[in-house]
């Protein structure tokens, strides 16, 4: 589903590469944690998958597409296969829960009939049934992140990227959110989650990719946050 072949990325105004010679493969339906300190290259990795940035060297393949050869007019089609969740939720403050989730479908031209059917179903899945009319500021942090996840998943993407989705949440809520992602993963969606949250990584025991200063230093199946070296 995702393949990096000797990928390096150096930002224009930086002398240090953000990623160095990364090669990895993530299969369909996998759940992968990307761990590492701040500045280790986790977000850059996700941005390359999302085609927000282009690799300086090497090949990135996502959902059967070679991104360096992907014309910009075909990037939206790629992004329709990827859902994204961020630490800061990025909800639209003037739209209620239903409208926030529906927005992702409306901008793609989905029919109102389909939206009326799919959005409540997705809100039910993320545990927000009955809160459709609430505005973001009337929700807790965990609930806001559930709305963001519903918005990312409503289009049934093949891949869901989560960049520190529990960064603003307390440990209990964080665990709920990751369990929700795990449930989504079981529907066949590939999940790549960048995180700092040691407890969650250790509890879920999924595959762990560790980045250190732009290098992939560990790729461990059923891994933990930190290994004693």
């Amino acid at each position, binding site marked *: 589903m995702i393949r990096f072949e000797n990928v390096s990325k150096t930002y224009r105004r930086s002398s240090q590469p953000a990623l160095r010679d990364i090669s990895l493969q993530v299969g369909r339906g996998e759940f992968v944690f990307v761990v590492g300190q701040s500045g280790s290259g986790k977000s850059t990795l996700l941005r390359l998958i*999302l085609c927000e940035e282009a690799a300086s060297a090497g090949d990135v393949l996502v959902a059967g597409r070679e991104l360096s050869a992907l014309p910009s007019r075909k990037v*939206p089609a*790629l*992004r329709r296969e990827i*859902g994204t969740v961020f630490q800061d939720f*990025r909800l639209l403050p003037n739209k209620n829960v239903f409208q926030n989730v529906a*927005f992702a479908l*409306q901008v*793609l031209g989905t029919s109102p009939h389909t939206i009326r059917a799919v959005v409540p179903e997705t809100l039910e899945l993320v545990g927000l049934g009955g809160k459709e009319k609430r505005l973001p500021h009337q929700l807790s942090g965990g609930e806001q992140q559930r709305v963001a996840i519903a918005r990312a998943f409503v289009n049934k993407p093949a891949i869901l990227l989560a960049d520190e989705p529990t960064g603003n949440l307390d440990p209990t809520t964080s665990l709920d959110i990751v369990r929700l992602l795990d449930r989504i993963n079981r529907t066949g969606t590939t999940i790549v989650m960048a995180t700092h949250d040691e407890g969650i990584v250790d509890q879920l025991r999924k595959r762990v990719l560790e980045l250190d200063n732009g290098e992939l230093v560990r790729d461990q199946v059923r891994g933990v946050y930190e290994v004693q070296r």
Partner: protein
Amino acid sequence: MRLQFILSEIWIDLRRNRSMAISVALVTMVSVLFLGIGLLDQRQVDALKGYWYDRVQVSIFLCTARSDLPNCSAGAVTESQRNQIRRQLDAMRPLVKSVFPESQLQAYDRLKAQYKDSPTYRDIMPSQMPESFRVQLSDPTKYDVITSSFTGAPGVGDVQDQRRILDPLFNLLRGLSFGALALASLMVLCSVLLVATTIRQMAFSRRRETGIMRLVGASAFNIQLPFILETLVATVVGSALATGVLWALVRYGIGYLGTRLPINFITTADVWTVTPWLVATAAGLAILTAWVTLRRYLRV
């Protein structure tokens, strides 16, 4: 995106940014108004020209006994010279539409009627007035054919084309219309810059929406479309207001003059003729400005 969704989003955004939308509409209104005045002024000059040129004549003044014109040194025009001129004019049909011979007495009567209260012409005698042929042309622009044929001919004192009197007036009106168009260009530049700045601000204030649209896979066109349509709505409203003002100016301003002066003035029909051009120019510029600005300031 579906039309209903686009329209509802545009309505929400226009309400949220109403001061911006109003400023774009008003600046567009002023620039389109000047553009309209310039275009209507040109049409007015054309209408006046058509009106007057149909009425102007080329006058061939004949020599009198007291004439001091260089071509009249031989004295007053003779009967044979007069007949020769008449024959020559008849031979120039159909360019020559009609010829009115005006005798010295008729010229005197006309002068007295025109300037009956003027002391300047009180002591003038009929014998001082030149007799003339007033020639009306089927194509008034070809007056120089008459001028070149008769200037210096025996018995002809002078050939005068009345257009020479009217042309400075038309030139003044043309100058005014070019002035209005120059001012319109300046206002159009202002409105282009304002639209560009407004879109830049709109793109910044809506970066979260556009960011989400981008992430969920909306195409560049779909992300840019609401901005372009909102600008278009504000511009079309501005153009409509300008058309309304132009209509009122012509209907009540020029219309009032029309009831007072026997001149061919433009009518509201002329306003409707220039309106599509005004709206198309304003809309075209708005779309182009929006597109260029969005390419630069909106990440898609």
